[in-house]
């Protein structure tokens, strides 16, 4: 078997199919524009952004990053097991990935609770508008990811997929990794960069 790096061109293909990757492109461009907007707004009002950032909890953000990365590892391991016709391992990994999504949302809701208890709303300042809007949009992506992972894990365990029918599992995993990818930029930009 060829290693991925040495695969000949004719055997190279997009995991999950072209459509999910076009979706990934649109999503990355959208969030990319939000990140540019956030940077521009921060440049024009650094004091308000610094004050807002000081109310965040970077440790919770870091923990949530590790939770999502663990979900990413499990989803990738699930794809690998599905390709090798190991349905029980693949299903267990996908269930595990979904569980990390639930943990992420639990921590995020706890964080939102602390922020709202401090009297913050979308209109408090430009920082809070960006923070609540962009992290809220990301939260909805995590929710959707869990919504895709759960039935996929269930059907994988039932033997509906496997090496001859890998597209669904791969596409769901790609979506889940997109959620990771967005967060690894969002976390330092909103929580850490001074």
């Amino acid at each position, binding site marked *: *078997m060829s290693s*991925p*790096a040495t*695969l000949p*061109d004719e055997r*190279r*293909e*997009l*995991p999950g199919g072209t459509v999910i*990757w076009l979706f990934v492109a649109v999503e*990355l461009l959208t969030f*990319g524009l939000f*990140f*540019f907007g956030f*940077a*521009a707004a*921060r*440049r*024009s009002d650094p004091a308000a952004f610094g004050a807002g950032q000081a109310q965040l909890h*970077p*440790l919770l953000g*870091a923990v949530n*990053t*590790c939770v999502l*990365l*663990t979900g*990413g*590892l499990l*989803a*990738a*391991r699930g*794809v*690998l097991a599905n390709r*090798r016709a190991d349905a029980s391992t693949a299903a267990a990994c996908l269930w595990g990935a979904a569980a990390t999504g639930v943990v992420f949302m639990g921590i995020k809701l706890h964080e939102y609770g602390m922020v709202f208890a401090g009297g913050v709303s979308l209109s408090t300042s430009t920082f809070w508008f960006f923070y609540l809007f962009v992290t809220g949009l990301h939260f909805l992506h995590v929710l959707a990811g869990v919504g895709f992972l759960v039935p996929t894990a269930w059907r994988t365990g039932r033997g509906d997929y496997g090496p001859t029918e890998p597209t669904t599992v*791969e596409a769901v*995993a*790609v979506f889940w*990794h*997109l959620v*990771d*990818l967005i967060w*690894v*930029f969002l*976390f*330092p*930009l909103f*929580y*850490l*960069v*001074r």
Partner: protein
Amino acid sequence: MAQRSETKREARVLIATWGVLVALTVGSFWLADSRTGSAIGSAVWLLGFAMLKSHLIAIVFMDLRRAPVAWALVMSGFLLFETAGVLAILYIGPP
């Protein structure tokens, strides 16, 4: 037998990648928490780590290693552009 050893090797690559991603996350948190150096220097490191992490996710977790090379190049180019763009907007030129 060959397929099983290939699977084990692939699984090890995934776990090693996850280890690097977690280490970069902990490093980012520590760097920001210690507040050492200038804001610009710190931002370059933090967003540089984010770019490295996003590449690892795209190439290893999302399996772009198996995709047509053009897709991997476009993804890498976009992630580089995004990082450089954010840094440029934050620190270069008039506010």
